């Protein structure tokens, strides 16, 4: 491919930079709305800190509830960064380029809240530093803390590396921005002047990080799975937990990714960059993951259900016909089977609406599934629950718990939005470079080099 016309390149950059710092009415509404939920959650958290975990519905039998379910959810979602930037890179999928920064932003936000959830769940959060001063490396909790911290740092670096050339572009182009911002950009751009050595070094750094981050990402979620798989409880005492969590996580992450790019496409007017090709390809991945997850579910529930060992039976009966049966069958049918059917048809995969619908179902199923992994198992321990006080042999989350849960989810979305604000959502330099090398089609962008199609609203 021939070099891009510098004017066109300039035009593309202007277009992508136009979202930086720009206010969108709908977005402002969401930021305020989510911010208010977060304030509510913070108030709830303060109440919980003062009164103790007694304000939650967790009791001695169900000693882990929504918070830990949400921990598993967030850790899971954070895997999407590794999927897009490592797995797709290694499989040579060129259409990933416009998605990289979005995926990393989701990862960063998710892993931040994943690190936050255990603190919410602790009886004595003020003793958190004991993990460092008295840490026992035999405990999976310590592994989890180390893995989450490592993955967080890794994700920050991975978010930053492809940002360097873009920051240089911002430094050079957005000369009318406030002085402190320009100063920050100059500092963060590391004197990037796009010379060959710099390019070589950046590519090398990205390659190394891409290789390192994948095992870290997998370990983060596997260790989270071990938190429950390392116990001797019926339903949890299973070797499938690691892969089960990892693939469930990739599935949920892909669904979230689809929803976010669907929102960004119109919200930020990125129709030329986030195209049906991306939805189609992500839908294919989602199809493969949901199908594989269904297979894992059949293994996880079907194998013990065939044998019906005494202790497993109580848990399985609860899920199949008991109090949680509605949720269970919802996750299996609405969360897996129906999305698989939808995504199996090419016509539906090519329709953004259908892909989004399937993603919403998958995501809802994945969220409920985290709850089903944690709570029903705790209600069926080996030793029968007898003479339980009121509220001990059941779990109905309290308002405080719902408030904190809702605000964590709100905070997760809010943080993603805030990460999109100071930087261009699409990796400018990589997209232009790859378009030069391979053409628009392979990258999945549409009509960005046809000048007249570009609606310019550069600042």
């Amino acid at each position, binding site marked *: 491919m021939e070099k891009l016309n510098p004017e066109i390149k300039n035009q593309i950059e202007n277009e992508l930079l136009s979202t930086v710092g720009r206010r969108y009415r709908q977005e402002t509404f969401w930021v305020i709305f989510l911010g208010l939920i977060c304030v509510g959650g913070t108030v709830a958290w303060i109440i919980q800190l003062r009164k103790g975990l007694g304000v939650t519905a967790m009791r001695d039998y169900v000693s882990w509830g929504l918070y830990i379910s949400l921990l598993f959810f967030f850790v899971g979602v954070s895997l999407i960064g590794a999927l897009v930037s490592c797995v797709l890179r290694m499989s040579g999928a060129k259409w990933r380029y416009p998605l990289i920064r979005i995926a990393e932003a989701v990862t960063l936000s998710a892993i931040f809240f994943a690190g936050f959830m255990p603190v919410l769940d602790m009886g004595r959060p003020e003793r958190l530093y004991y993990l460092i001063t008295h840490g026992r490396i035999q405990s999976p909790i310590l592994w989890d803390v180390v893995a989450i911290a490592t993955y967080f740092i890794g994700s920050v670096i991975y978010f930053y590396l492809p940002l360097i050339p873009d920051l240089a572009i911002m430094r050079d182009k957005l000369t009318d921005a406030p002085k402190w911002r320009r100063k920050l950009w100059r500092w963060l751009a590391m004197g990037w002047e796009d*010379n060959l*050595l710099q390019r070589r070094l950046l590519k090398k*750094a990205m390659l190394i990080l891409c290789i390192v981050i994948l095992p870290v990402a997998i370990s983060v979620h596997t260790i989270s799975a071990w938190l429950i798989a390392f116990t001797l409880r019926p339903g949890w005492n299973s070797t499938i937990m690691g892969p089960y969590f990892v693939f469930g996580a990739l599935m949920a992450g892909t669904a979230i990714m689809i929803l976010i790019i669907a929102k960004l496409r119109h919200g930020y007017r990125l129709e030329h960059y986030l195209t049906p090709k991306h939805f189609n390809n992500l839908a294919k991945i989602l199809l493969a993951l949901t199908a594989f997850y269904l297979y894992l579910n059949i293994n996880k529930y079907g194998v013990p259900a065939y044998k019906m060992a005494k202790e497993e039976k109580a848990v399985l009966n609860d899920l199949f016909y008991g109090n949680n049966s509605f949720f269970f069958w919802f996750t299996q049918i609405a969360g897996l089977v129906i999305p698989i059917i939808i995504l199996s048809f090419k016509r539906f995969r090519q329709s953004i609406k259908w892909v989004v619908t399937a993603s919403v179902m998958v995501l809802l199923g994945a969220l409920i599934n985290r709850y089903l992994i944690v709570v029903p198992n705790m209600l069926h321990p080996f030793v029968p629950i007898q003479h339980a006080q009121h509220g001990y042999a059941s779990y109905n989350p309290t308002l405080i718990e719902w408030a904190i849960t809702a605000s964590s989810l709100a905070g997760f979305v809010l943080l993603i939005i805030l990460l999109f604000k100071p930087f261009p959502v699409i990796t400018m330099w990589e997209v232009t470079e790859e378009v030069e090398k391979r053409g628009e089609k392979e990258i999945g962008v549409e009509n960005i080099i046809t000048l007249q199609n570009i609606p310019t609203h550069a600042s």
Partner: protein
Amino acid sequence: MQANKIYNFIFLSFLLTTTVAAQDEKINGNIALHLSSNDSMYVVTATVTNIATQQPAKDVELTFYVQRTFGLMKVADGTTDSTGIITAEFSSDIRGHDATKNFLLIAKVEESDVMKDTAFQVSIQSKLTFPADKPIPRSIAGAHAPWWLVVSFIAAVGVVWLLFVYVLYLVYRIKKASMKVIS
């Protein structure tokens, strides 16, 4: 167990030191304990004498106990014959009280018609080895991690963090590279 020790001979007796107000019906007695042992049994011979008359006390019911942490474990009992002697046997598979392997054998007179309540004791070295105090080993369940876990944990985390540092070093070199004119 060495052959010469099988018939080892312990003789210990303790004088009653408490002075109890004299009661006409019951006598104050002294018990001399004589212990020998064979392969599987301890043989204890108790000689009960009336302190006042220095005569053997007969028809005294004696119970033999071994002192344990939370109570007295009954091992044998009997009644003295006309010479004031009881011979009782009990199994020698009794562990010591602590690492010294010693345990106390107590001969007790309890609610006897003849003699006032009293107790005499003898310290015996057990033939059984006392389980050694084992520190909790380095293990998953213990306070200290097994070395292989420490090594693999540090290695795994260390490799990742070193690579992070190397990546940051590359970023530093990017900054350095801006000074040069290469292209």
